[in-house]
């Protein structure tokens, strides 16, 4: 912002000699009111940073992701190594006793002392003596991986389907849309469950099942975006310059449609995590000894009365992950929405 050019000292009173014609220097007269505008991505990034929930959410996700891979390495235990002597020990972290990590069970008894166990299990152990810390982080690892792969597959298929449908329009679009209309009528859960029944529960079947039902959402968003952009003039301009179809698609349409695509992707992640946990909870997810957050919650639920920590810890973990992803996705949506230029 240019200020009025300093003219030495400001006069304090109005004297006759002030009434002389004194034009501004050329550039001052041509003052540009608007500051150089940021590129849309930079502007969006700025908006993102201002959102109160986004930064802590992002940090939390980073921390959790790192721990998901590093966590299991921090202890000498493996996620499936059983040790009956150490079964059902409450969580114990020296120094954090006041937070509940004191190694005392729900009756206040110190099982560690009773059984002469010197090593502290930070998150306790389950009924087979498996270390919960390792299991929880391994489980987080698996849940995150499943979610990521499913989301990326959704993205890939959805973008392809929606992009082609929207770009070519006409009959192709019609047919493709009819197919989606019918598919949408089928409740996702049913398809997922049936799929898993056939394919045998496991990581691949879960990912496949979620992908099959999830791509539709992405396809619709992509199609909507591209249809909207297709009508805009910069596409006409590109066409009139003789740019090829695929180039238009990749260089012009998709980058501009990226905003909602990214947002949808971000929202797919917590949905995938939820679904996986849900399936595991009803027994259709991963099988023992594999652990995912859903499996852990299910196990924890069974022992809830006597060993609340078994439920609480994975429940808190999954809640934190979901909240963070949702906040992040929310923030992204607000930041990338062109209408929100406050």
């Amino acid at each position, binding site marked *: 912002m240019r200020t*009025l050019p300093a003219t030495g000292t400001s006069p304090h009173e109005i004297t*006759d000699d002030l*009434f002389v014609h*004194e*034009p501004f220097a050329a550039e001052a*007269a041509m003052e540009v009111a608007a500051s150089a505008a940021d590129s849309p991505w930079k502007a969006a990034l700025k908006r993102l940073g201002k959102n109160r929930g986004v930064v802590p959410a992002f940090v939390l996700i980073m921390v959790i992701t790192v721990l998901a891979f590093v966590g299991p390495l921090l202890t000498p235990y493996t996620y499936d190594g059983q040790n009956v002597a150490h079964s059902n020990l409450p969580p114990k972290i020296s120094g954090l006793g006041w937070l509940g990590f004191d190694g005392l069970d729900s009756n206040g008894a110190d099982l560690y002392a009773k059984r002469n166990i010197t090593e502290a299990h930070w998150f306790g152990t389950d009924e087979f003596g498996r270390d919960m810390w390792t299991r929880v982080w391994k489980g987080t690892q698996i849940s995150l991986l499943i979610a990521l792969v499913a989301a990326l597959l959704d993205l890939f298929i959805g973008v392809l389907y929606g992009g082609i449908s929207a770009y070519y329009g006409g009959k192709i679009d019609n047919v493709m849309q009819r197919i989606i209309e019918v598919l949408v009528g089928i409740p996702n859960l049913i398809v997922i469950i049936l799929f898993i029944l056939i394919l045998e529960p496991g990581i691949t079947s879960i990912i496949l099942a979620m992908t099959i039902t999830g791509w539709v959402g992405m396809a619709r968003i992509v199609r909507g975006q591209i249809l909207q952009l297709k009508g805009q003039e910069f596409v006409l301009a590109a066409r009139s310059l003789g740019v090829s179809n695929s180039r238009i698609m990749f260089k012009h349409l998709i980058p501009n449609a990226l905003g909602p695509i990214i947002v949808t992707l971000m929202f797919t992640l917590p949905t995938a995590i939820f679904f996986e946990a849900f399936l595991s909870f009803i027994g259709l997810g991963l099988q023992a000894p594999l652990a995912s957050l859903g499996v852990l919650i299910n196990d924890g639920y069974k022992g809830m009365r006597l060993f609340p920590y078994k439920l609480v810890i994975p429940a808190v973990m999954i809640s934190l992950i979901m909240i963070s992803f949702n906040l992040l996705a929310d923030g992204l949506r607000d930041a990338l929405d062109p209408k929100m230029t406050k």
Partner: protein
Amino acid sequence: MNQPILTVDGLHVAFHSQRGEVHAVRGVSFCLQKQETLAIVGESGSGKSVTAKAIMRLLPKQSTSIPAGQITYAGQNVLALPPRELQSLRGAEISMVFQDPMTSLNPTMTIGQQLVEGISKHQRLDKAAAYEKAVNMLQLVGIPNAQERIRAYPHHFSGGMRQRVGIAMALACDPKVLIADEPTTALDVTVQAQILELMKSLQQRTGTGIILITHDLGVVANMAQKVAVMYAGEVVETGPIAEIFYRPKHPYTWGLLRSMPRLDAAGNEPLIPIPGTPPDLARQQQGCPFAPRCAHVMKVCKHFSPPLTEVSSGHTAKCWLLDQRAQQQERLAGVAGG
């Protein structure tokens, strides 16, 4: 001189934005007589729309404030009215027509319902009578088949028709003042003329005073008796229409008049815009706000805000060129607009 029905005195309006306080209106004063049309002219960002909304206190409470000024209607200060009385005032004494007819009507209510809503609030009429009055208003503003159309929804009407409905809504309770915020800007030129004619004839019938906000000098010439020119939140010149068009005294007014395209201009004659852009209203200015763009700027203009000077009866302007001392310095030849 009759008593004015509405007086605005030293109005200041500020917006609280992320960049700080934006002073959109800085000490605006004018008055409106009965059956008079006052046009407030200015470019986008001059504060004219904000002024209009301020009169009816329609500005968002959370983000705006009125740090100073008085708005007097029928002896009362509008700015100090409690909510109940403010509601009685709106629609019945002072009402407003908005700029964009496509968005200023509720899309999920019939126009009849929207008309009757105002009517039954202000006038003691039962439902049937209120509807009848609504039909009358629609006929008055030239909606054909009013009896049937009254049950239609806004999206059944064209832009021009919707604006007529807007005018009907505004005039339904016989207000003494009608504020029209750029009522024709969003309409086609032919429809513009119709709407303006409509407003004029209604004014004749009802004696309503009209404050017409616009950036279009052509509209002003057609409708107004008095003109107030606004720039950067201030009124820089006010006067009867003949004075403003034939003997303007403020360089901004000259610029406005000169920049109007003319039918009788030669084919390749360039248009004459006013160089530069309006100032950033988030910053307090020193001196005259128009100084950076003024071809006749003097040293004094950069440091001191010009006082309101009376040019002739009813004609005032805020410019240092009108000061005695300036007249002695330079002979300003032939700068009147046109």
